[in-house]
């Protein structure tokens, strides 16, 4: 059910954004737009099906942990 909803949303986005891009013949923008939308749809479906998605915050935390330990020493 959720997957159908996501696909409908993607279809609506395509219906709104793609025709003006095709009319203006902007191939590069169309390529970036399609890959972003594909990525977004895939992510949403994965989330809806309960697939574990890697969290970018874990990565950020891993990078900045040493700095934050320095800050903790302040107070």
């Amino acid at each position, binding site marked *: 059910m959720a997957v159908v909803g996501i696909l409908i949303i993607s279809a609506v*986005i395509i219906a709104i954004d793609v025709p003006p891009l095709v009319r203006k013949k902007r191939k590069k923008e169309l390529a970036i737009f399609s890959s972003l939308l594909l990525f977004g749809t895939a992510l949403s479906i994965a989330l809806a099906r309960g697939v574990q998605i890697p*969290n970018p*915050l874990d990565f950020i935390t891993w990078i900045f942990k040493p700095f*934050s330990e320095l800050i903790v020493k302040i*107070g």
Partner: protein
Amino acid sequence: MIDNVKVSSHQLMILVFLYSIGTVILHTPSLMAHFAKQDAWIAAIIGAGAGILLTGLYIKVGNLFPSLSLDRLNERLFGKFIGKTVNIFFFFWAFVSSSEIVFYIGDFVATFWMPETPSFAIHIMFSFIVILAVRLGIEPISRLTEILFLPVTLLLVILIIAIVPEVEWMNIQPVLEVGIRPIIRAALVFVSFFSLSTVMFLMIYPSLVTERKKAAKGFLKGTIYAGIILVVVMGLNILVLGVDLTTRNIAPSYALARKINIGNFITRIESFLALFWIMTVFIRGVVYFYVSVVVFSNIFEVKDYRHLCSPLGMIMVVLSLILYPNIQAAGTYDKDIWLPFVSIVGLFMPLLLLVAARIRKRVDR
């Protein structure tokens, strides 16, 4: 890019004002009281002062090349390759932050207003208006802030005046008991939310404003007004609720508004506070998302950023749902990780830009 958009100095002032109040007013007091206890208000004053200094730095960076926005400035001064790398980091930061804003709204509404509604529904609805606003462009957004300015300020002033009778001066005594280090730590927390992220107004300030000199003043004024409001609210939180309650609440200012009682007649008006909080957070979310979409389209040298709003918005919704498992995780992140993360774009990037500009000047001679 559409280059004929213009923001007036007055609009920029309001935009900065609403943006700076944003999330800070509701969540930050609890984090600050956690460190500085009853002296959190002193930390807020120090933090607001530092915020004004930082705004001065940003204005200086903006005046280097008045026709360029921040991401183009990066490419101009650092060179194409390093500039693009910096921009990718900048985009990543702005995009993650915009998802965070969506999370905060979702969490707030689900906790206080609609506990039975699944949070993704709130996330999707809020993201939808953010995407809509960014698609329309920065000019309608800045006009919207003009409409929001009066109700927000009025509500704030009424709330502040109404809460004054509840003040208990015992709550901030003894002053300066915790020592200087926790106060500095709390001030750093305040700065990291209040002013380091305003660096993103460099995407708007020199290149999209009508009068540059006046706009710089507007930028500064917006920061100062927001700083005053936040110091007052921080002080009132401690004075009315006390250290203990301020620390334990996830949204102390909301609990503060709940305390308002005028002659047993006007009570429980905290929803007004939440209403204006959502307005300001909406502005913050819109600015974050606008900046991330514009930076993204500049990285790939796309002419019109508006077509990338909806697919990026879709990813933003997913990100906002997986970013934090709960509000406690958000608190830990805000306390420890956010400060170094935001300092890179908010402090080191502008400083490096100033240095790079000076070196370029010398080489050109």
